[in-house]
């Protein structure tokens, strides 16, 4: 097995130098999610202005895959409309399960190798689930 299939340079870079890590002063939405199988947690603060994700921060603790994925996601959705951001989160999830082609995923595409490791897919999608929760008004808010 080649570990590098999973831990691409981009992933290690985002893990070591996370983008948009921290909190927002007055976020429009704040969502925390827990991965109960490993105890990892992620919180997202989202600032929405005129339907756009004008700012976003993540915090929490987790493995390199969940932290890099969160960092990459914040980069991918910053400045996008809420609908576009939601579409990115969903596209990423189906991209990982191998059912769709990537669209506007940016660095997130580097996580493709994770699809070979079913137990780690949950790590890679934690931030995406949190973003869906924050942006999808049809989902129950916590």
């Amino acid at each position, binding site marked *: *097995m080649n*570990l590098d299939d999973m831990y691409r340079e981009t992933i290690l870079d985002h893990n070591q130098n996370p983008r948009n890590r921290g909190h927002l002063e007055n976020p429009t939405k704040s969502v925390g999610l827990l991965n109960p199988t490993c105890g990892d947690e992620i919180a997202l603060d989202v600032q929405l202005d005129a339907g756009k994700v004008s700012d976003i921060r993540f915090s929490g*603790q*987790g493995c*390199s895959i969940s932290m890099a994925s969160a960092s990459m996601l914040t980069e991918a959705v910053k400045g996008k409309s809420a609908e576009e951001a939601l579409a990115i989160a969903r596209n990423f999830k189906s991209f990982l399960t191998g059912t769709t082609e990537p669209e506007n995923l940016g660095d997130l595409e580097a996580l493709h190798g994770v699809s070979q490791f079913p137990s*780690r897919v949950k790590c890679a999608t934690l931030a995406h689930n949190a973003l869906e929760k924050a942006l999808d008004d049809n989902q129950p808010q916590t």
Partner: protein
Amino acid sequence: MMDVALVDLKKDFPILARPIHGHRLVYLDSAATTQKPQVVIDAEVDFYSQHNANVLRSVHTLAEEATTLFQNARQTVARFVGASRPEEIVFTRGTTESLNLVARGFADKFLKPGDEIVVSPMEHHSNLIPWQQAARRTGANLRFIELDPVGQITLEAARAVIGDKTRIVALSHVSNVLGTVNPIPEIAEMAHAAGAIVVVDGAQSVPHQPINVAQLGADFLAFSGHKMCGPTGIGVLWGRYPLLEESDPVMYGGEMISFVDRETATWADVPEKFEGGTPNIAGAVGLAAAVRYLDDVGMERIHRHTTNLGEQAFDRLHAMSGVSVYGPQRPHSGVLAFNVDQVHPHDVAQVFDSLGVAIRAGHHCAQPLMQWLGVGSTARASFYLYNSDQDIDVLVHAIEETKRYFRR
């Protein structure tokens, strides 16, 4: 000195010959579940291919044979833990079900508002949540014996919590994270003097050391077959006979009754009243084979061997830079939790896997203990009779590789 002859037993475990990603499999996850020797696999195959029938119902030949094998398995397990009679052995699915059985069948019946259940912060969730829930149902209160700085329970700390109101003291014998061995006999004496009963989670001790329930001072002892070379889906609740008699059944249905009419039912005797439904017959037969296997090797020997590996591994990892180990240095059972600085345990376990080394990463079903340690999760290596000094070398090497991989 390591018991070299013991390590020869590797050949008894067919799975250990399976290469993983081109490497020799180094299985260091026995605290989660142990591998199975051929004799246990054979016992299940033999049961299904020669003796399979339901137990305690029919009179045909196969049913007689199956029933005899099932009841012999009970005797074998009873002897293994020093039960005073085979009926004190209740077959369950495992430790979790055994502990829930005590919480439902005993605690619910006898606890009153204001009574106290004493546990510790090192408990596996299966020896915590049943008590949280029993406390809610009965109005009893949950009290915690605090741990000393390295994660041990001292008698002083126990004395500070166990008192007049204590009705139940529920503790793990050996921690599945810290490798701590708790002073159960001394605590049991204290608990009994206070009029409390003692429930011991033996999931990590029964597989690793000689156990005699009388010497242990326990009133109930729970353990799992799959952590002692046996099959999954079979476990044991041992209880003192009078306490089992007083306890209520929690699973109603076939085989656990004496007389039933339209409105009412009376219960079968102990242990059948706790074993509603068709039991895991092949599992019990497999567990008995596992017990015979362990007895042939010798529980004293296994105990010395796994403790030796746990303590050696503690010292080796303790001496490494950028590695934290948890729990006491001595004595330390064959379970070792550790972290590699700045590398999440999941990533550690992933690198290990690529080298053929199986460890566990996560909270080990002990979130309050993770909170006590101030970490989100840890990696954990755990040893059993088939592990060797060499496996510790591989563990140390795998940690070096992990550091190299993530610090490039």
